[in-house]
C-alpha cells in the first residue's frame, strides 16, 4: 500500500475542495441571481475547463506554466520554486479543472430558491451576506454538497493532468491514481487491488461523513 500517494491524493482533493467551496458558493450565487451584461460570457468562461480534456489542460498548463513561460517565471521568482511538477501546480490545475463541477451544481441549487423567499429575507432586514448565510446557503446546501462531492471525487480520480504535468514524483506529484497505474504496469496486481480497495473504502467513508456532516451543518445553519 502506497500511503504516501494516498496521502497526497487526499491532500490534493482537500485543498481543491477547500479552495472551490467559497468560490462555488459566491460565484454560483452570483451567477444564479445577478443579471448583467456579459453574463453569458462569464458563464462560458466558467464552463471552459469543462470542455478541456485533462490532457489538453495538462498540455496547456505545461506550455503556459512551464519554466520558460512568463507565468512560470513570475511564479518561481515570487515563490522560489516552479509551478509545474509541484504540488502547488497540481492544486492550481485541479482547481481550474474542477471549476465547472463546483460551480454548476451550486448555481442550480441557488436558482431553485423561490424568489419570494429571498425577497422575504431582504424584507426581514437581512443584508446580502446574512441572507446568504441564513437563507440562501441552507436552501442551496444540497446543490453545494453535490458540487463538493463531485469535486472531491473528481480530484481523487484525476489522472491525465497529473500524468502530464506531475511527473509521478513520489510524495509530490505521484497521486494514488498514478500509483495504481504504476502497480498494474509492474504486474503487481495484488498491490493494485489493495490500493484500489483502500481508496474505495476511504472515499466511501469520506463521502458518507460529508453527507452526514452536511446534513448536520444544514440543520445548524437553519
Amino acid at each position: 500500500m502506497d500511503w504516501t500517494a494516498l496521502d497526497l491524493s487526499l491532500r490534493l482533493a482537500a485543498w481543491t475542495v477547500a479552495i472551490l467551496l467559497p468560490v462555488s458558493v459566491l460565484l454560483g450565487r452570483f451567477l444564479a441571481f445577478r443579471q448583467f451584461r456579459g453574463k453569458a460570457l462569464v458563464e462560458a468562461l466558467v464552463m471552459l475547463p469543462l470542455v478541456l480534456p485533462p490532457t489538453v489542460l495538462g498540455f496547456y498548463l505545461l506550455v503556459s506554466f512551464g519554466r520558460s513561460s512568463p507565468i512560470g517565471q513570475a511564479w518561481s521568482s515570487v515563490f522560489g520554486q516552479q509551478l509545474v511538477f509541484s504540488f502547488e501546480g497540481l492544486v492550481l490545475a485541479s482547481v481550474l479543472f474542477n471549476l465547472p463541477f463546483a460551480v454548476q451544481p451550486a448555481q442550480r441549487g441557488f436558482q431553485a430558491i423561490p424568489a419570494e423567499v429571498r425577497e422575504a429575507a431582504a424584507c426581514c432586514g437581512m443584508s446580502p451576506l446574512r441572507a446568504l448565510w441564513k437563507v440562501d446557503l441552507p436552501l442551496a446546501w444540497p446543490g453545494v454538497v453535490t458540487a463538493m462531492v463531485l469535486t472531491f471525487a473528481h480530484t481523487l480520480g484525476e489522472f491525465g493532468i497529473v500524468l502530464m504535468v506531475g511527473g509521478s514524483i513520489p510524495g509530490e506529484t505521484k497521486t494514488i491514481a498514478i500509483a495504481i497505474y504504476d502497480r498494474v504496469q509492474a504486474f503487481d496486481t495484488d498491490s493494485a487491488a489493495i490500493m484500489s480497495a483502500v481508496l474505495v473504502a476511504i472515499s466511501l467513508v469520506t463521502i458518507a461523513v460529508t453527507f452526514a456532516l452536511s446534513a448536520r451543518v444544514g440543520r445548524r445553519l437553519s
Partner: protein
Amino acid sequence: QQDAPVVAAASDLQFAVEEIAAAFQAETGMRVRLSMGSTGNFARQIREGAPFQIFMAADEQFVLDLHRDGFTRDEGDLYAIGRLAIMVPHGSALTPDPELDNLAEMLAAGRITRFAIANPDHAPYGQRAREALMTRGIWDDLQPFMVLGENVSQAAAFALSGNAEGGIIAHSLALAPQVAPQGTYALIPEDWHEPLRQRMVLLNDAGPVAEAFYDYMMQPAARAIMERYGFVLPGE
C-alpha cells in the same frame, strides 16, 4: 525522504532498476526515488523543467537531443543494449518463436484478435517492435489487431492480461520474476531492428546522491543485475 533525488527510468527497467536501487541503498545508505514511464514522456517533461536528476532512456537519441539543447550535464553514458522478445500468456493460441513464424501463420489463419506492442510514436521499444515486424513482413497485416501500450511495460501488461494473444515486449520484462511465470517468450533476432542503445545522463541540477547512483550503475554489482535481466552491457 523528499530530498532523495528522482530517477526517471524507461519502463523496460521497471524491475531491474528497482533491484539496483535497493542494492544501492543497502550498500551506501543513500536513497533515490524512482519514476517509471515512457522515455518520450520523460524527455518532454525534462524540457518543461521536471525536477529529475538522472534520466535513464530506452533510446539514446532522446538523451543526445536533450544534451544538444543544454538540459543535461554531458552526453551521459551508454549503460545497456535492450532486446525485444515476443511473449504470449499461458493458454494463448500462439506459440512464441524467434522468427515469428507462428505469429505469421496464426495471423494468416485469422486467429489473432489482439497483439500488443508499445506505442511506436514515442516509445523506443515500440519503434523497434515496428521495425522488427516490418522486417518479418507482417506489420501491415497485423496493424488492425494492434493494441498500443503507453510504454513498454503497459504493452507487457496488455500482452499478458489474457485479452491479447501476445505481444512484443522488452526482454528485461520477460525475465522479471513477476512476469516470467505468466507466459512463455522467445528472443527476436537482434538484427531485425536498429539496436536499442540505452543511454543515461545526469541532468543539470543533479546532486551528490544522484552522482553516486550514476556511478553505482557502472559498478559490477549493478551490471550483474542488469545482465540478469537480459541486457547486453556496453563493452561486452
